[in-house]
């Protein structure tokens, strides 16, 4: 019984983290969470312990648990790690990917291209909320498929955890105005090129392309970070 309460608490807090309702820097109050979820503090403590292990929450001795807050250096570090892990996944995936998995990626690419056309129809030249959510969903699927194709479940676990940390930071960045026609087109171009590399089973090119893509993402996040700083000042 107790286990399932811990699981329930974990899922609940994690959802709140990834949708941004518990923003970075926010303190997690055991008792408040317990009454919100309707459990005792013991499963809450266990859930938080797991979130600390995954890097989503940090424990400050004497002060409590806080949603991980990123400064620029922290974000940079996160991207260094993601680059190392995900480029390696790209190389492994190019070795092991099955025909079926390739087809699924292909279908996601077709959908992404369709999305670009939909976004193009928007008067402001960027996506609306619904389009953004659809887009992000497909992006997630594309990466999950790749990770699965690398055939190392542990690698998948580590990457998914870091994507989850990125998501917390990204939650505030989920602004439909940021998904412009140009951004969407560039992503499609990357996906098309990447798929071709996978089909050719070219591991070193797969690694290189993925690394470039992650560095692009990093640049965008850092720019957004600077932009926000400027607006705050």
């Amino acid at each position, binding site marked *: 019984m107790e286990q399932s309460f811990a699981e329930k608490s974990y899922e609940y807090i994690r959802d709140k983290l990834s949708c941004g309702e518990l923003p970075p820097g926010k303190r997690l109050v055991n008792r408040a969470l317990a009454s919100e979820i309707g459990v005792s503090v013991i499963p809450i403590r266990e859930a938080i312990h797991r979130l600390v292990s995954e890097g989503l929450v940090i424990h400050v001795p004497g002060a409590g648990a806080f949603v991980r807050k990123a400064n620029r250096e922290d974000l940079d*570090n996160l991207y260094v790690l993601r680059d190392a892990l995900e480029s390696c996944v790209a190389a492994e995936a190019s070795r092991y990917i099955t025909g079926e998995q390739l087809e699924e990626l292909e279908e996601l690419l077709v959908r992404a291209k369709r999305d670009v056309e939909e976004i193009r129809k928007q008067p402001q030249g960027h996506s609306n909320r619904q389009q953004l959510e659809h887009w992000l969903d497909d992006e997630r699927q594309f990466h999950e498929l790749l990770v699965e194709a690398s055939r190392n479940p542990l690698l998948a676990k580590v990457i998914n955890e870091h994507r989850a940390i990125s998501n917390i930071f990204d939650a505030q960045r989920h602004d439909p105005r940021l998904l412009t026609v140009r951004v969407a087109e560039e992503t499609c171009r990357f996906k098309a090129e990447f798929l071709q590399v996978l089909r050719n089973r070219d591991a070193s090119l797969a690694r290189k392309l993925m690394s470039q893509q992650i560095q692009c993402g990093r640049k965008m996040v850092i720019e957004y970070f600077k932009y926000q700083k400027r607006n705050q000042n």
Partner: protein
Amino acid sequence: MDLPLALTTNSLRVTSLRQYIFNEILKSIFTGEFEAGTRLKIQYLAKRYGVSSTPLREAIIDLCGVGFAQFSLNRGAVVSAFGPQQIRDIYQVRRILEVESVHCACDCRNLKDIEEVYTETINLQVADRDENWFRRCTEIDKKTHLTIVNAAGNSHLKHEIIRYERLMNTINLIMEQDKHYEDFLSEHLEILEAMIHCDQKSAGEAMSNHINAAGKRTVEWISSLVEFQQ
């Protein structure tokens, strides 16, 4: 069941209750007592090891962190499949992390700590092979990898690398890595030397070779263990 000597000895030096339980559960997974799908029930295990639930929960989270168990809905933590392939997976992840760690550390301007570990390693190579020598070898192993990731200065990377420290500690101790110590010392020296010369590429390659070699040694050991069970 008769166990290989290494798994029956109680000679493991235990630094904390959390590490002790981590070791014990891992040994039961290695010997096949806890097969894939076994539920790690808190109450049962707390009684078995005579500990409270807190270090037990911590140890289980640590085991999940390195892939030996996973949380499943309504069933708590469940033991994952285990065999040579899983060991290969672990070393693949470790290789990516450690190579990145070396790459980042090569950008570090202050080489004092790296030079210190280098000197210590050379001293160990020429020291008498007494009982202390083995203990010092495991210590320098840990210290070397930690010094490198500290020089890398990436907290996310460090968080990931430290997950495996507990596991490597257990593996080193129960695997009787003694006969491999000569190998790993010279592998470490190669990495450190390249780092001191700021040769990022060679340092990365040396680290990659080192983790691959360590992985191979562990896979051989695990395979003999699996054969032993059959």
